[in-house]
């Protein structure tokens, strides 16, 4: 079956531009997570959705970061007025429920120039 997909795979943005990163979770997965991963490091939690409800956004680094999952399936992570420090790989993961193992997408590599 299809896994988690993310688009685009690579994104180059000029500083100050807005970007939108998309995640298509595995069908039927209730829980959806966004992570930020720096090169050679473990993922850093950004936010968590259960269906369409954003239950935890404690990891979002600033109010320039915004995530939504309006119909409880596809999710979008938006970064406004991108800064160089936003350059990272953004990973999306989904799971059957919050306690189960998470399945990750390939990530979107964002480079802010």
């Amino acid at each position, binding site marked *: 079956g299809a896994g988690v997909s993310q688009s685009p795979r690579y994104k180059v943005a000029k500083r100050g531009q807005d970007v939108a990163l998309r995640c298509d979770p595995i069908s039927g997965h209730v*829980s959806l997570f966004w992570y930020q991963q720096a090169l050679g490091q473990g*993922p850093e*939690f950004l936010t968590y959705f259960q269906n369409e409800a954003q239950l935890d956004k404690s990891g979002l680094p600033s109010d320039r970061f915004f995530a939504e999952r309006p119909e409880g399936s596809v999710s979008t992570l938006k970064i406004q007025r991108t800064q160089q420090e936003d350059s990272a790989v953004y*990973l999306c*993961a989904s799971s059957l429920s919050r*306690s189960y*193992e998470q399945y*990750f*997408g390939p990530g979107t590599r964002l480079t802010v120039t």
Partner: protein
Amino acid sequence: AQSVAQPEDQVNVAEGNPLTVKCTYSVSGNPYLFWYVQYPNRGLQFLLKYITGDNLVKGSYGFEAEFNKSQTSFHLKKPSALVSDSALYFCAVRGVGSNYQLIWGAGTKLIIKP
């Protein structure tokens, strides 16, 4: 404080030899433990998990991990390494007080030499 430690940045093993990638954790209560593997330019792939039951857990691609409560460890093992096992390996633990947030180790780069 809850934490996960992977004490080795890199592990080098000859093809065909057994491999071990170490992980220790600090979490109060009963931990849920996970291993993931990441190949270059790809997302993390789930390998195995320990929730409860047998201390030896078997996972994908011939990997297994042993939960040791007294040593608070969850080392990843494989009896005979393949060159294709070369990748970045992450240990993670579900934090107490959260039933979804994972605490991640910094990762261990595994290099299998032919």
